[in-house]
């Protein structure tokens, strides 16, 4: 295992220290319990948007703390959900009197810990669960779809609504609308190695890739031979398109995401192919995001997320945001 770390036991804490040093104008890092809070929190009269999850997906979630996005993020250990203590602390530190909306990615651990926190919190709290990964069957026989790339778009759009002063019920309703309109799928060319495990999370031969991977080093739907970029993009887009389904005339935001170890040149290449495929289907790409925004440590691979837009979502997407990882209009 080759990593730029001192000790697997302290990797999250050490990285948080670096984040604090790099972005002290935007956020304040509290340790024990670990919470990353907007520098100007609590913001009076505004809904506090709070998320969190295992570490190792940076910039998600800490990199999205700041004006127009998250009020706080709760970083768990690598690939392990945070504890309810962290979430309770985040709620308390960001309480501006308008309640808190928790954005929970659909994993059993995250759901249970955020649920306990919501029960314990002293503020009015609502939770939404995002489950946009079409690689997982949503049936009685699974824990349901995972929350993946759509989370980034959800946090941006609902963050803008909270920033403009929408109340808790409005933020929740908007969040549910975004969740209903967003779908994602990912693939991996290489596995990643969790620091405290020390070996790759799954095996992939030199000529294999894994389609339908999650963001925690979980293997996916199937191992297949490595193909061309065009085939890869089609393998991700088709299940997304047929799921919602998206159809000709739809306006979408296309998010081409890197898994952490993917060079940007490859991401742009894949993005170009996706734009072409969507144009061929009569789907209009109105907004786009390209880059590594929700990652799995050093995993090489990509995911595609498609969000069906309406006018309000476009307006909120374009609204100013000032966080370590997303910034515009400020």
């Amino acid at each position: 295992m080759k990593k730029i770390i001192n000790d697997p036991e302290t990797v999250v804490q050490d990285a948080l220290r670096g984040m604090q040093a790099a972005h002290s104008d935007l956020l304040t890092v509290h340790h024990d319990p670990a919470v990353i809070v907007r520098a100007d929190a609590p913001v009076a009269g505004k809904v506090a948007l709070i998320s969190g999850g295992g570490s190792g997906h940076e910039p998600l979630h800490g990199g999205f703390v700041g004006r127009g996005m998250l009020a706080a993020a709760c970083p768990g250990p690598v690939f392990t959900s945070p504890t309810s203590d962290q979430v309770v602390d985040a709620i308390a530190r960001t309480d501006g009197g308008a309640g808190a909306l928790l954005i929970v990615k659909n994993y059993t651990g995250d759901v249970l810990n955020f649920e306990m926190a919501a029960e314990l919190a002293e503020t009015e709290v609502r939770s939404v669960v995002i489950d946009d990964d079409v690689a997982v069957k949503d049936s009685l026989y699974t824990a349901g779809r995972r929350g993946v790339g759509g989370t980034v778009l959800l946090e941006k759009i609902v963050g803008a609504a909270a920033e403009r002063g929408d109340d808790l019920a409005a933020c929740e309703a908007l969040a549910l609308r975004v969740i209903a309109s967003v779908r994602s799928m990912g693939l991996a060319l290489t596995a990643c190695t969790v620091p405290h495990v020390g070996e790759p999370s799954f095996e992939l031969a030199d000529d294999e890739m894994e389609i339908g991977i999650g963001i925690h080093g979980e293997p996916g739907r199937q191992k297949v031979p490595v193909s061309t970029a065009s085939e890869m993009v089609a393998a991700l887009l088709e299940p997304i398109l047929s799921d919602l389904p998206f159809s000709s005339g739809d306006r979408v935001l296309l998010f081409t995401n890197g898994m952490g170890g993917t060079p940007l040149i490859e991401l742009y290449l894949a993005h170009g192919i996706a734009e072409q495929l969507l144009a061929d289907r009569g789907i209009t790409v109105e907004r786009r995001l390209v880059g590594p925004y929700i990652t799995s440590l050093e995993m090489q691979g990509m995911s595609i997320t498609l969000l069906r837009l309406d006018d309000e979502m476009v307006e909120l997407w374009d609204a100013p945001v000032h966080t370590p990882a997303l910034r515009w209009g400020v």
Partner: protein
Amino acid sequence: MIQDHRDELVRLDQAIGDADHGENMKRGFTAVVARLDAEPPDTPGKVLKLVATTLISTVGGAAGPLYGTAFLRAASAVGDASELDCDTVARALQAALDGVIARGKAAVGDKTMVDALTPAVAAASCAEGTVAAALAAAADAAAEGANSTVPMVARKGRASYLGERSAGHMDPGSRSTALLLRSFADTAAKS
């Protein structure tokens, strides 16, 4: 005890999950031991409560709230009794199982810790009368329950994403439940 089995639990979770169960449990129980050493509570109920809050605040993942709820419910069942008799222990185990099911909504056969805890509760009979005997029976049953998860296809938790591919591996949470019960039984036998 859990600490000694960290790597085994990590490996089990690596096969069908995300390879953190051993690390999560180790982190939690290391904190538990430290807090119990620092300020030993004076009743079994308080011990259970301290274990519960410590696990809730340190384990994270699915296992944290589930074990936390289990110990919290067990603490309530035990109340402020100063000594544990066999019936109290049996009631506490039942309460723990109810808590896990209430929080996680899993049933027997879903390939979770419920598959270890359910037979353990059933086996913890007080016919012989001693706490040690009841816990030993529970631990044996939990171990078998854990073994029974091997062929199962997971329907709850992270392993469920794998569908059929989850069969052929033991569920890590059922294994840690069996280990915990074994450690309770061993402690009871020694005292």
